[in-house]
């Protein structure tokens, strides 16, 4: 399998895993390990002063996993930029998954605020991985601004609906010069495999792993699916045909014609 290259850095795994919703830090650590992932997303929130020692990320081995802070909760470019700067100060990492989601019901990303924030953050030296709707024109605009990837959604965050945006994703994959990471809505390993088969460079999964009855087993299932999908893509699948095409010659049958 080819390596995934993001901003000049090479990764063996094409599965990124989010760290939300796990039942415990220990289960999360085991699931991350089973997933084979090398990049894990994290969020920033106010310290809960009533429970100030809570540290759900204490089990993450920071030598093994690249932390990718997100700007979840931001409703405007300004808030996203502020969160990105805080994330950089907290982690020492200048990578950021840019999310601007003004609508709390579907959590769909705002294209205008996302583009505005990306312009600022790229100028400030951030490696920007923007979460976007599956909009090929926006993906190109962001790439032109200098983002390291584009991260189009398959379906709304946490919805487990799979690749509802497949047709637009195919256009983004066809046109993109930066890695395409399909993010959000992948509910089953088959969804992840489908994204990889159509040429996505990577996928990001959180809820489908974290909320499974057995997150460790599901993490392994996603790992295998991502690898299967990528290998199939690299192997070059044949286009579908409208009619049957026999696997053996249609001659030499045990009958007289």
């Amino acid at each position, binding site marked *: 399998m080819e390596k995934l290259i993001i901003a000049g850095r090479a990764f063996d795994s094409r599965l990124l895993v*989010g760290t939300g919703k796990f039942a415990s830090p220990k289960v999360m650590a085991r699931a991350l390990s089973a997933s084979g992932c090398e990049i894990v997303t994290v*969020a920033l929130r106010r310290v809960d*002063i009533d429970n100030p020692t809570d540290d759900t*990320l204490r089990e993450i081995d920071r030598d093994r996993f690249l932390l990718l802070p997100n700007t979840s909760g931001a409703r405007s470019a300004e808030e996203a930029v502020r969160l990105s700067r805080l*994330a950089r100060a907290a982690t020492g990492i200048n990578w950021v998954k840019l999310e601007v989601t003004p609508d709390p019901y579907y959590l769909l990303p705002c294209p205008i605020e996302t583009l505005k924030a990306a312009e600022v953050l790229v100028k400030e030296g951030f490696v920007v991985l923007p979460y976007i709707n599956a909009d090929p024109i926006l993906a190109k605009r962001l790439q032109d601004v200098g983002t390291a990837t584009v991260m189009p959604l398959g379906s709304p965050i946490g919805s487990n609906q799979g690749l509802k945006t497949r047709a637009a994703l195919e256009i983004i994959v066809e046109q993109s010069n930066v890695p395409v990471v399909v993010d959000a809505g992948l509910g089953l390993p088959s969804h992840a495999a489908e994204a990889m088969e159509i040429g996505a460079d990577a996928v990001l999964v959180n809820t489908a792993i974290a909320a499974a009855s057995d997150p460790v087993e599901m993490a392994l299932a996603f790992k295998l699916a991502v690898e299967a999908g990528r290998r199939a893509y690299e192997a070059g699948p044949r286009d579908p045909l409208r009619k049957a095409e026999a696997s053996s010659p249609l001659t030499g049958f045990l009958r007289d014609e």
Partner: protein
Amino acid sequence: MKSLKVNGVERQFAPDEMPGTLSALLSVLGVGPATVVAEVDGRIVRREEFDRTQISDGQQIELIKLMGGG
């Protein structure tokens, strides 16, 4: 009384109990500084700077940490 607004909540301190630095404030609140980054009146302060960051009456302080997310 002196006051600080911490994570959106007003906190009162007797003048002789007012924390002088961010580190002192974290210790009063029981917040472990290893995972925390701060904003003092909108200016970002890294945790290495908490010891030498003076705080004063009326300031707005945000204490932020990493947590699980997708």
